[in-house]
């Protein structure tokens, strides 16, 4: 990741505080940013911390999991997940689309229930089957 920090020395315009999730140590990280790009990571005690911090300030993504309403099935809802990480900022919009969605049973595990959710290019897939 050293090459990603070649901006080191540029004027620091912003500082972000994070907690590393690499291990239970949970190092408090400080990331210095210049023009939106990280120039320095502090507080980490291993390589994982630096990698996490850079990913987290440049493009934080999360796999989103939730439920979708089902009609005509053995249950009322079915569990779903996004097939790829979605940008953190898009999560509220993704949830709106998930809440607005109703599918008909039967559903098989892996069925795509929503395509290109919130324009993120990730799909929403069923994580269980329902008759």
């Amino acid at each position, binding site marked *: 990741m050293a090459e990603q920090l070649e901006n080191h020395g540029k004027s620091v315009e912003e500082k972000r505080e994070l907690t590393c*999730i690499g291990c239970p140590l949970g190092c408090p990280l400080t990331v210095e940013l210049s023009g939106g790009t990280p120039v320095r990571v502090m507080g980490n005690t291993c390589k994982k911390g630096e990698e996490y911090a850079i990913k987290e300030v440049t493009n934080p993504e999360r796999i989103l999991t*939730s439920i979708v309403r089902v009609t005509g099935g053995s249950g009322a809802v079915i*569990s779903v997940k996004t097939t790829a990480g979605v940008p953190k900022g898009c999560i509220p919009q993704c949830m709106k689309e998930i809440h607005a969605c109703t599918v008909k049973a039967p559903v098989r595990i892996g069925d795509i229930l929503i395509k290109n959710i919130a324009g993120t290019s990730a799909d929403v897939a069923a994580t269980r089957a329902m008759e």
Partner: protein
Amino acid sequence: MRKAELVIIGGGPAGMAAAVSARQNGIENIVILERDHVLGGILNQCIHNGFGLHTFQEELTGPEYADRYEQKVKELEIEYQLETMVTDISEGTDQKASDLLPGVRCIHVSAVNRTYGFFQIETKAVILAMGCRERPRGALNIPGYRPAGIYSAGTAQRLINVMGYMPGKRVVILGSGDIGLIMARRMTLEGAKVLAVAELMPYSGGLKRNIVQCLEDYDIPLLLSHTVVNIRGKERVEGITLAKVDEKGRPLPGTQIEYECDTLLLSCGLLPENELSKTAGVALQQITGGPAVNDRLETSIPGMFACGNVLHVHDLVDYVSEEASLAGKYAACYIQKAKEEPVEDGTKAKERAAEDGTEAKEEPAKDGTELEAAVTDDTELQIQPENGVRYTVPCSISPDKMADQVVVRFRVGGVYQDRYISVYLGEQRLLHAKRRILTPGKMEQVILKKSFFQSVKPDEAIRIDLEEE
């Protein structure tokens, strides 16, 4: 009476992995008995991702992880009975009735379901895989009224993720275990306002990843060293009062914070569900609340094995599957050994049993003293947890019978930085491994090799502790 070689109690991750492994190790006649109407156990309601990184090298959700094992169970044509409640497990006494397994001990499993009503299965071996339950409000000494709107976190999880009901709109969560953290995020995503997560201890029992991704991502405050001191509302929760606590967990006057809310979730620990084991006479470990097992994951009753959260509460399902696979394998070994080397010739044993009404010889007695004597004959080394190590699973190993390597898992009693995990046999140090950090929320492990125990004195014990250097 119906006969089986192996009965597995519980069709969750532990039960399914144990069944698959037992079948792969040559056991034909296996029955899984499951209380719910589907296999998969608690994984069905754990719709979040993060399961399977060790087992499948990919990140799955709970239902997907369960499905992988369910498919294996089906491919291997392992029998399972759903909506079946096991009511009793006891050691068999009627040796004459045992045609399948002449001359050897058996176990009777009693169960009830809608198809067969009450029925019994006579089996050679049992694997306990019943999982665990949440600590309920009644065990927490929370003052206040008893209105609607107080749920254990797992109950709320089931209501939302499986049944599609939303239990409340404004929520306070007591306890920062992983289920509580996961539910803080789930309820937020489903439109509720989670006001705070309070934790009695000065540290969280949950994984760091969950604190960041479930609380910090959604700006939900985590109040350490805080607890609920009052619940307001008679019919429905109307408000919760939190207060800071001192180092002994006593609320400090003047630190109360009031929250207007309609729901309180409790995520205050899990308890292995061992009512059946207790009735059967299985010896339990006081700290885990699970059976005391040896390195073959066999309980104090021969032929009765345990794995998964009924044994001790795990933080990763991957470890449950690994442990359960071992239990399945050892149960298979036990059954095969009994087939190959019956205690004595089957017919003779039957005659003998008929004559004197006793069980075949070398039957470990139910009486504690004789059992202990039998154990000493086989040289079982006890593992003593000390100095920060709260318990170990297994709690004994047999240098003769043990596999080349045995994984010993344990939890520590507090947060420790820069400590060594040390393993001793008598005065001799076998292992000395540094850890940057140890927390109660994370299960630790050491690997004991058979080669460590080539010359052991019978009265020696293994000691596992934490050391500063």
